[in-house]
């Protein structure tokens, strides 16, 4: 819990995109901390700003159409104020990244070993032999059975699970202090998913790294994360330890998400799943003031919401946005529109 273990600290981070001459926030006023030896999961539906937050932290936005504010302290330096060349030194070396789209992350024309060497070349001064050995060691570390063979293969010769392991190998090649993994298992089978998550956890233990795990799979979060931040419409609406957020969820959004998951004991023919009304608005249509989740729980009176919602501490480290959690109750509605 002490400050020295904080690896990354986000203060009031906002990211806005320009659409037809106007800026709209995709991420709004986010405060978060990632500690050493810890996995922080960011969850939320599609379009809630999870990937945008990650790419903001590592400076991967076109500044002609993006406005970013706030601070992101990483090892004492504000990433949001760094120049491109400073960022290039950090990315891939101190911060490893696993992007949402696994197919585009690998070069189809290069052998796996060469793709690993490339990162090592950029950030280290290893000899050819050192690089070769390191590549094999990395492939072994991510659980590839025959590192020597895989090193000589091209991406299309590998299965989806193996490709994802290679991507992780590249992300950890320079022993980063922080790993950002955006939906690292979404396209994979459960058995492979479980293996990849084990690999991530092992690496975190070995390297004492911090990990930001972005996903919309609540099961994955519950199985792997130490801390959770639930995002809705660009804002963090609830955060705390995994036990706090999943064991004692408070925000209506968190509770609704958990409730919409299939439960094992339901009747196959007759039991319906809980449906959250409405959908995540596009950033142009986002409510500009008040509780952004309010339109999706219209049976909760306006008076229950704060005019300018803030985070409230429920117990040490467990925070919830807006006071409406106190008055929230479920109402099952037959809703037709997506």
């Amino acid at each position, binding site marked *: 819990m002490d400050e020295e273990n904080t690896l990354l600290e986000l203060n009031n981070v906002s990211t806005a995109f320009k659409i037809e001459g106007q800026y709209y926030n995709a991420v709004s006023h986010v405060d978060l901390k990632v500690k050493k030896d810890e996995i922080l999961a960011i969850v939320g*539906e599609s379009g809630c700003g999870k990937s945008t937050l990650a790419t903001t932290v590592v400076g991967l936005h076109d500044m002609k159409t993006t406005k970013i504010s706030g601070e992101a302290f990483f090892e004492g330096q504000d990433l949001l104020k760094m120049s491109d060349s400073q960022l290039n030194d950090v990315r891939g070396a101190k911060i490893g990244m696993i992007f949402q789209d696994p197919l585009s992350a690998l070069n189809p024309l290069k052998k796996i070993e060469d793709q690993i060497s490339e990162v090592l070349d950029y950030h280290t001064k290893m000899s050819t032999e050192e690089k070769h050995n390191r590549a094999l060691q990395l492939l072994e570390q991510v659980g590839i059975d025959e590192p020597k063979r895989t090193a000589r293969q091209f991406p299309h010769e590998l299965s989806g699970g193996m490709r994802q392991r290679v991507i992780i190998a590249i992300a950890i090649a320079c022993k980063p202090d922080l790993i950002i993994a955006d939906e690292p298992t979404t396209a994979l*089978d459960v058995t492979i998913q479980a293996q990849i998550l084990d690999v991530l956890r092992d690496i975190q233990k070995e390297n004492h790294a911090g990990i930001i795990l972005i996903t919309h799979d609540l099961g994955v979060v519950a199985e792997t994360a130490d801390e959770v931040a639930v995002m809705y419409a660009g804002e963090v609406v609830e955060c705390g330890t*995994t036990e706090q957020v999943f064991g004692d969820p408070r925000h209506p959004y968190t509770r*609704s998400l958990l409730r*919409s998951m299939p439960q094992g004991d339901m009747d196959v*023919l007759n039991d319906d799943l809980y449906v959250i009304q409405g959908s995540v608005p596009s950033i142009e249509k986002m409510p500009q003031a008040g509780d952004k989740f309010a339109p999706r729980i219209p049976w909760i009176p306006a008076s229950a919401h704060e005019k300018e919602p803030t985070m409230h501490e429920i117990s040490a480290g467990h925070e919830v946005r807006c006071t409406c959690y106190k008055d929230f109750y479920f109402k099952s509605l037959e809703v037709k529109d997506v």
Partner: protein
Amino acid sequence: MSLIEIRDLTVHYPIRSGFWNRVTDVVRAVDGISFDIEAGETYGLVGESGSGKSTTGKSVVGLEQITSGLIKYNGVDITKKSTRKKHNYNQNVQMIFQDSLSSLNPRKRVLDIIAEPLRNFQKLSAEDEKIRVLQLLETVGLSPDSLYKYPHQFSGGQRQRIGIARAVATNPQLIVADEPVSALDLSVQAQVLNFMKKIQREFGISYLFISHDLGVVRHMCQNIAIMNKGRLVEVGTREDIYDDPLHIYTKRLLAAIPEVDVSKRDERMENRLKIEKVYQEKAKQYYDEDGLAYPLVQVSPTHFAALPQDKLAELTGQKRRDT
């Protein structure tokens, strides 16, 4: 008699190579599987990527050239195109595709997409056709102004509903639903699954529900088949599969399902690692010398598993001791 009976279905894809582009080998995508789908039920087909689920699904709707075996519909073998036609099979059996974006023609308007099966099978006037499509849009919960929009103007969940509207247009008896919700968010997934159940209750539709999400399958399916490398390794009711899995492959698949109950996390992880260890050590015993699953054997009136003789003997011994 079941609505659909599948017997010893095999689908082999040729692998061509060399200068003459001759067939040198085959991929045994589906390698001799049998199961029945009853009227009004949801039958689950589960397995890892590449196990042959989509190939099975496409064979059932007649989109795949099958290598051998039988597919019976109300007792009639419909593996021939001419018999499918005679029994209106293609009208009565429809498919929801794995990838909603690429399965909907981007240059066609929603009206034309949904009307396509109607145009193929029913000769309606333009007026009646539009009325029917509007009715279908209402059933799947899309607004009438969707008629003249294009697929890219919809969210993933809405597109999946367009695919469902098209699939139900001809009032089919069976819909093969290939991963209908795997690309969707929880809240949209809930809507689509509820909707599928709703039209099942109303119209008595059967589903062949293909998925690798065991949580969703448990929610939707009465009967389930577990597929592994083109063969079935276990078949049974929901309870048989989830409460009493027998094949090592099924056990491993179940152990890997992530759950939201944080308090049991360490326990589950331990269990998973234990099963993984058994799998690594003993998986070979569950497959023949070619690495393929054994034939299914019956262990209860509803439960079948691809167990080798010695495992089966062990199991019956144990059952006898238990009782």
